[in-house]
């Protein structure tokens, strides 16, 4: 049932006092009940069915378009010489970018000890997995002879033909593949305790068996938790450079070329910032309806949403900085080709895409300087959707303007997307949302075990030393191993 709780505003910040992250007075039991209720109720809310129906339809369209593509060839798309990449690679970079927010929340915010991440990290990681699946689809289907895609893998063959490891397109195979595997592992491993919760609360034998298998027999042993936490920390530490590297490798697809507008050294960090920007916008787009629909407003509170808005603002500024640097260096370099491409972006045949991008990316995100915008849930949703649109257009502008008007004017040609491409893009959203809605229905949407660790009841000292007025402090000595058990 949808939440009837009013919106509790916990965004006020009084320095010296950390605001409560979980509102509504929920304790361990309350948190578990609230999150498990999404799964335990016999029927999901009607809106879930409607959304699922729409996304399943879109998924069907995606399947049909891909089949049509395989049978008829890449000519059904609007690609030409020189614009050999269009919607296909735009969609790829768009979806991979969206996935990055999930890993940032899981891994990077974990390393920064940001407790508020616990409410959203589970479904953000799920978003990552599904986004990467959508992303991996596009390089797969754009190669022309899809049934030969296995040639990308280093498999022994009688011609002694191996992949060209110097190509960024092959680095992509390894980067996106590694990213998918590591995100999947991180997501699944983190879910084990919550799957155990589902197993223990299962009402039917079937559910007990399925979730029991998935939970791998987890029994909450502290000795297990010790290794679990260590593995989690190590995965977070590995996933952090991974997330930076993946979108950098994607940016290398463009930046290692010599094309004006593509070959610029700021691409790696710029793409990463842009990915996080778009990804957090998608997190907001998903979180805001989900918390309304599934009654999670006490767990995904306004404070969580406000923090996401701030990250959107910061990464939006980074993206704006990159635009400025590219533009400045295009002039500073004195290269007529670079200068031309930036003038073409702003005033040429794709100017409409360029200005949409600027307005949505740099323009819309600036609203988050204002507290009002950061605490109004529907305004947040509007800005987030605008950012998603803007980030799609950013990749479109980068790819298509530089390809369609490169060094030799006699080679120019313009790109017009076909209906098949547009429907494929729409269909990819179908794949994403179908998987996401299934996740909401059948898997623990919120990391219950992690949320419990940030509840005030989880702290030991309050009850262990009720008579002390001194706030929690460590013993004052230099021993660095004081809070560490002796190494084995």
């Amino acid at each position, binding site marked *: 049932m949808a939440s009837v709780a009013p919106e509790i505003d916990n965004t006020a*910040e*009084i*320095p*010296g*006092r*950390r605001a409560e992250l979980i509102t509504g007075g929920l304790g361990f039991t309350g948190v578990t009940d609230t999150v498990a209720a999404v799964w335990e109720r016999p029927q999901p809310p009607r809106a879930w069915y409607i959304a699922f129906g729409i996304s399943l339809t879109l998924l069907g369209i995606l399947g049909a378009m891909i089949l049509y593509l395989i049978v008829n060839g890449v000519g059904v798309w609007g690609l030409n010489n020189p614009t050999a990449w269009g919607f296909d690679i735009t969609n790829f970079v768009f979806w991979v970018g969206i996935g990055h927010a999930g890993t940032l929340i899981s891994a990077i915010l974990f*390393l920064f*000890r940001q407790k508020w991440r616990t409410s959203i990290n589970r479904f953000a990681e799920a978003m990552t997995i599904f986004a990467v699946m959508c992303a991996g689809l596009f390089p797969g289907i754009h190669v022309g002879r899809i049934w030969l895609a296995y040639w990308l893998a280093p498999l022994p063959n009688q011609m002694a033909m191996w992949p060209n490891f110097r190509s960024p397109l092959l680095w992509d195979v390894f980067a996106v593949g590694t990213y998918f595997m590591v995100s999947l592992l991180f997501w699944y491993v983190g879910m084990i305790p919550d799957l155990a919760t589902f197993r223990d609360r299962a009402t039917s034998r079937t559910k007990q068996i399925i979730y029991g298998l998935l939970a791998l027999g987890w029994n909450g042993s502290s000795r297990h938790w010790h290794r679990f936490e260590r593995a989690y*920390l190590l995965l977070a530490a590995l996933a952090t*450079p991974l997330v*930076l*590297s993946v979108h*950098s490798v994607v940016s*290398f697809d463009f*930046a*290692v*070329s*010599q094309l004006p507008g593509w*070959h*610029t*050294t*700021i*691409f*790696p*960090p710029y793409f990463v910032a842009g990915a996080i920007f778009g990804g957090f916008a998608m997190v907001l787009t998903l979180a805001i309806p989900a918390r309304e629909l599934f009654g999670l407003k006490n767990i995904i509170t306004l404070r969580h949403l406000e923090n996401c808005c701030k990250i959107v603002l910061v990464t939006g*500024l980074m993206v704006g*900085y*990159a635009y*400025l*640097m*590219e533009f400045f*260096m295009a*002039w*500073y*370099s*004195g*290269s007529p080709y670079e200068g031309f491409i930036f003038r073409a972006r702003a005033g040429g045949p794709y100017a409409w895409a360029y200005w949409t991008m600027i307005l949505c990316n740099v323009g819309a995100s600036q609203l988050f300087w204002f507290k009002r915008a950061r605490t109004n849930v529907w305004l947040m949703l509007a800005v987030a959707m605008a950012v998603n649109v803007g980030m799609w257009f950013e990749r479109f502008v980068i790819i298509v303007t530089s390809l369609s008007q490169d060094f030799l004017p006699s080679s120019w040609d313009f790109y017009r997307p076909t209906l098949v491409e547009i429907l494929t893009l729409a269909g990819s959203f179908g794949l994403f949302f179908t998987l996401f809605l299934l996740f909401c229905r059948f898997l623990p949407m919120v990391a219950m075990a992690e949320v419990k660790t940030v509840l005030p009841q989880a702290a030991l000292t309050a009850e262990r*030393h009720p008579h*002390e007025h*001194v*706030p*929690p*402090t*460590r*013993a*004052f000595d*230099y*021993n*660095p*191993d*004081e*809070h560490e058990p002796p190494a084995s």
Partner: protein
Amino acid sequence: MHRPTLDIDAEGRPLGTAATRLAGAATLLGLLAIGGSVTLGPQVGWSIFFRSYLLNYSYFVSLALGALFFVMLQHVVRAGWSVSVRRVAEMIAGTLPWLAVLFLPLLVPVLRRWSDVYPWTDPGTVQSDPRLAAKAAYLNVPFFVIRCAVYFAVWSWLALAGLRESLRQDDTGDVRHTQRAERRSAAGLVLFGLTVTFFAVDVLMSLHPHWYSTIWGVYFFSGSAVGFYALLIVLLVALRRAGRLTHAVSSEHFHDLGKFAFGFVVFWAYIAFSQYLLIWYANLPEETVWYRPRQGDRWWIGVSLLLLVGHFVVPLLALMSRYPKRRPHLLVVAAVWLLAMHWLDMYYIVKPRPWLEAGASAPLHATDALLLVGIGGLFVAAIVRRMARWSLLPRRDPRLVESLSYENV
């Protein structure tokens, strides 16, 4: 279990007159070293002298800018762990107004239009080179001077306003100081990003005015962050030797600072590698021209490899485990090493003179070392003088308690 209470005022008390004397000695040493290098000027050539000055100056200003970034960042993210180390960082950032003064000697080659320091300053070079003429609207002396004035004005304001706000809070304990600092830091970080980028472009990238790289600002910033964290670790260890901050700064703080140093080392390597890989891959002469003298002979190949191994591989392996990060006496060794590597990075950027001659010039001069001591002495003196006068802890910062009691993951 009885827990001793912490005497915050004793932990953070200023260093006093002994430090003032130390600052005086450092100032004297600095001035002597600068004077000594000036006397060498005619011998090595004034352009070499000013390039050595630029090298060492960029080094110290990058440390101060790293500190300014750190302070503003901690305010914006409402960090609790860093409060007990923030005052020292504020004092490092507070050297920026002095560094503005120390920038003035660099205007000599600019105003006198010496083409072997900044080629674009020389009208003859610009006239005969259409590529320089095309960017003369930006790379011209008056605009350069105005821009530098703006950079230092912005930085000095941010640093001093931050320090003053923090010091005032020592007396009043008013939370509004924290809130004001947060708002100022948010806008400050935007200004910081722009000014540091264009400073790096103007002062370092324009040494080779044909060359350009959009990631240059980020590259400079990443190096300065590494240098700052290393400097902070060294200063904190020194202060603890002097009996300050012995309990307020614990192995938890060092662990975090070590983590940040590790993280920024990896970040620096990522940025440096991105720049290198893209230029290597496309192999365009107008871009590779910057790297050629840096790989052109045995010396420079050695420097490049030393930078790769020493600035990345060694710190990566050394700081990966928590063992050294939690032990200040080990961490400080890594910090000193990183400070040296950051200087090597600045050397790598400033020293080669490809504009003039195809071959390499003499790779090292006495002025490089003398001016390191010279500018360094004045830099350290400026920090120590503040440490002598003001509290080393933000005594009544509302988040100080959190900083004293947190534990690492």
